[in-house]
């Protein structure tokens, strides 16, 4: 698969995110993500992983601060280049076959869409004439990933991509993320810390309204490390 945009770079400065003004879920996030980097976002439920992705996708305005993707606002980047987004809960419109959903994705992408390569990369190896709503959760997520990859995005958000996948598929997914990093910058939120420790270049730990950037621990995410991190996400050096 040839990238249409090239991997994007991401710059975040003093970003406050959330749904209610004056009540941010995450405050003062400052971050630079290099092109082609795989950044894991780790935190407890409700820490703001999905909210961060929605803000960086440009569908949720930040409460304060600024984020730019290759020099553009997130909404402007999405509108001009497109991004790949695998949502935590891949909702498919009812009544549509997988073929139909892929056809709609191609219409949304415009010229340059490539469903065959996207399906191969996402592991869509089942008949696409099936109704999307009848698929198992894992199959639906693979279809969602194919839809995200149809436009050959330079920036890819994966929100808990391993959810619903069996162990074999999880291992394959790890390989796919490494493959995707050749053409895209990848932000991946997950609770599967073992997988993240292997695939990520850096880890953004978020919780208690704050964030901290760390290198993946060489001996994996130990219980002590996580307890220390989630109790005091501001602690240590960024």
């Amino acid at each position, binding site marked *: 698969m040839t990238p249409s945009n090239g991997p994007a770079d991401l710059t975040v400065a003093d970003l406050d995110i959330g749904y209610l003004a004056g009540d941010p879920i995450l405050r003062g996030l400052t971050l630079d993500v290099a092109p082609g980097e795989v950044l894991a976002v780790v935190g407890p439920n409700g820490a703001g992983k999905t909210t961060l992705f929605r803000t960086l996708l440009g569908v949720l305005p930040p409460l304060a601060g600024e984020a730019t993707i290759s020099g553009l606002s997130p909404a402007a980047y999405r509108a001009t280049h497109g991004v790949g987004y695998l949502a935590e809960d891949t909702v498919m419109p009812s009544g549509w076959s997988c073929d139909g959903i892929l056809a709609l994705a191609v*219409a949304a*992408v415009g010229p340059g869409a490539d469903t065959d390569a996207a399906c191969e990369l996402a592991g869509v190896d089942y008949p696409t004439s099936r109704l999307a709503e009848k698929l198992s959760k894992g199959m639906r997520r693979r279809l969602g990933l194919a*839809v995200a990859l149809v436009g050959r995005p330079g920036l890819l958000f994966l929100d808990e991509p391993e959810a619903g996948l069996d162990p074999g598929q999880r291992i394959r997914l790890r390989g796919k993320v490494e493959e995707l990093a050749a053409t895209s910058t990848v932000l991946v939120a997950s609770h599967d810390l073992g997988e993240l420790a292997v695939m990520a270049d850096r880890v953004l730990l978020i919780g208690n309204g704050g964030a901290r950037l760390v290198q993946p621990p060489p001996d994996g995410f130990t219980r002590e490390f996580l307890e220390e991190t989630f109790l005091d996400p501001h602690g240590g050096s960024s």
Partner: protein
Amino acid sequence: MNVLKATFQFALRTRWKLALVVFLLGAALATMARSMEINPFLIDLQEFMAANMPADSASPDQLQSFGKMMGLLALSTFLRTLFFFGATLFGLLVVGRLVAGERTSGAVMLWAQHPGSLPVFYAKRYAALQVANLAVQLAFGITVATAALGPGGSAGVALSAFVQPVTLGLLAAAVSFGLSSLGVRRNAFAGVAYIVLSHLMGPLFLELEAPLSSGSWEPVAAVVPYVLFPGQAVGDFAAGFRSGWDWEATGLVLYHFALWSALAWFGLRRVARRPLDLP
């Protein structure tokens, strides 16, 4: 597979039962009209009424025949009402929850992540749905045109009968899509309410037209046809195919298509700025 084919499959997969029921209603109307000679009876009845013949001057045989035919006429009218309601409902339902439902469920992000224009994307899907809708409405139209072509019918009457459900169905889909684009999640239900209320209120305003037009309500009376669903205007527009062309009705029908298309475009531009509308 392209958008048109995918949308066509979707429309038929989700709405084929309603389409079948409406088609069967039309087929029943056609069968009645052809086998029971309802059209000649209607002509006789019109002549009977035009002659203003007192009922007691009719012969007992004539009255018995009229009584029997009036029952069939009532049944035919009932089936016609159901048929037109069904054709309109198909137009409303074929749109599904295209925009508002996808925004609130999060499915909109399947498309909003891509660089193409979101309003254009939904407009393409709407156009494809209207093509599917048109194909089905044409089938509906053929059934009532066949009914109109029965004994006593004419090509002009058949064409008029053919055009009416097709126009109603297309306009209903335009209303449904407009409502959904504006964020109404139950767009088909809201469309039914709008059309039924328009149907009930239209005659009311027509009756009040004279007193309204003479007083300070004149501007209100003038605006009513541009706000209510133009069911009557669609009938007059279709009637133009068998008698004199009604330019006013034609203009009003086109205006409503343009109005709902403009409202939909306005709504879609809003969706593009903020695709997700999570509860």
